[in-house]
């Protein structure tokens, strides 16, 4: 019994450590939504432009989500609502946003 518990703990810890903050805290919830994370990135980018503005605005929204400042359409919000306030630490939130930016940023991707 003890061996089984230890095995499960090791597997779970290894799985958690293998995933980064973005994959742990963002991807699972957004997987069920019809708009991809890239689509949302482009919506956000359209409004906030540069990296600094983008990250600051996104962090603020995740801390204080509101329909008024959302970049998503009213139809989307009516169907899926506004997300819960993020309870992640500053460090984790910054890390997740940085990864999100690096993954979908336009820099270096155009030909």
């Amino acid at each position: 019994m003890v061996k089984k518990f230890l095995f499960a703990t090791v597997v779970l810890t290894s799985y958690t450590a293998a995933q980064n903050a973005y994959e742990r805290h963002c991807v699972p919830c957004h997987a069920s939504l019809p708009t991809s994370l890239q689509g949302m990135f482009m919506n956000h980018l359209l409004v906030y432009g540069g990296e600094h503005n983008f990250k600051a605005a996104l962090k603020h929204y995740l801390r204080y989500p509101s329909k008024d400042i959302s970049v998503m359409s009213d139809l989307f919000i009516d169907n899926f609502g506004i997300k819960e306030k993020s309870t992640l630490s500053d460090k984790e939130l910054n890390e997740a946003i940085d990864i999100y930016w690096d993954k979908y940023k336009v820099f270096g991707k155009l030909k």
Partner: protein
Amino acid sequence: MSVLKNKATNSLLKSEKKSLFRFLVLYTTMVIVLMVLLSAFYYQSQEKFMLAEERATLSKYAYIQTKRLKVLHHFFDERDTYPRDSRFRSAIYDNEFAKIFSLIKEENIQFDKEIYIADKMIHFIETLDNYYLGARYLVIEVEDDTQWRAEIWKHIFIYGSVAFLVFMLFGFYLAKLFLKPMRDSIVLLDRFIKDTTHELNAPLSAILANIEMMDTDIMAEKNKKRLARINIAAKTVSTLYQDLTFLTLEHERHNEDEPVDIKPLLEDRVEYFNAWIHSKRLECFMDTEDASIVIDKRKFTRIVDNLISNAIKYNQRGGSIGIKLRKGMLMIWDTGIGIEKEKIPFMFDRYMRFNESEGGFGIGLSIVKKIVDEYHMSIEVESEIKKGTRIILKW
């Protein structure tokens, strides 16, 4: 013959030339500065005009490119090829001026300007309302057609030359206007001299003739001295009269050039001034060899008379004068007051006098210079204050 038509008066004096030169240099500098400023303003206005015309075309290109960016933004997960156009090159920058993508050659974009020229390229900066692909600035670049610039330079050269010419003519008119008071006073003095010269001739001739005719053998020693003084005074006035006549009436007679034997002429002129030389207790050194020159004798006499009389007049009592004659060279020196180096170039100007203690009009050396120039001779002046002056004539 009107004095106003006198050639000597119409030619510019050195001091007049200097004033005219200074004025013209200052005026020309100001005109050039003005022309450069006007040209710069004209160039800038024409450049702005050309850019205003280009702005309409470039705005249209920016609008087209914005629409293409919009499409690419919405389909970015499927497409990643930046839209290109053969008519222009473009680049996109985010609101932190970081380059997102660029097809243009210029690296240092001037985001504070809407349109500008750099490296023969026209650049147009469009600020986007929506940050398609995160872009805040869209830069459009086209080749600069340098034809307009050549046209502007052509206009600047043609109109500039015409304006410069007009300004310079105006400058000459102004210069003449400024020099008129100086010129008027010279003309007035000339007229006065000419009028008085005529009245001097008859009494002067009578005085000199009667002095020559006087029997000095029966004269008391005291009266002999008095007569010698009268003789010197009369000869001084006679020399002045000769100079004034030369100055005012010379252009009315023709030169009678002939080979002149200089040595006897010098001896004759020294003899003429002998009484004056003795009265100032001067020692006269003659070092003459045979030499001749082809010249109007009357004019050469004027040169010799003026140089000798100056050597006597500006000498100190008990000093020396010397005359050295060689082939092609005549030197007359004195141990007089001398003249400052910086004043030497002006000593041949008419009415120029540096020593008010001695009488005279200041015309003697101007006559010398005039004759020297006429016969292409050269004249050198070496002088040291309180030591003396050497005037060397070469032909």
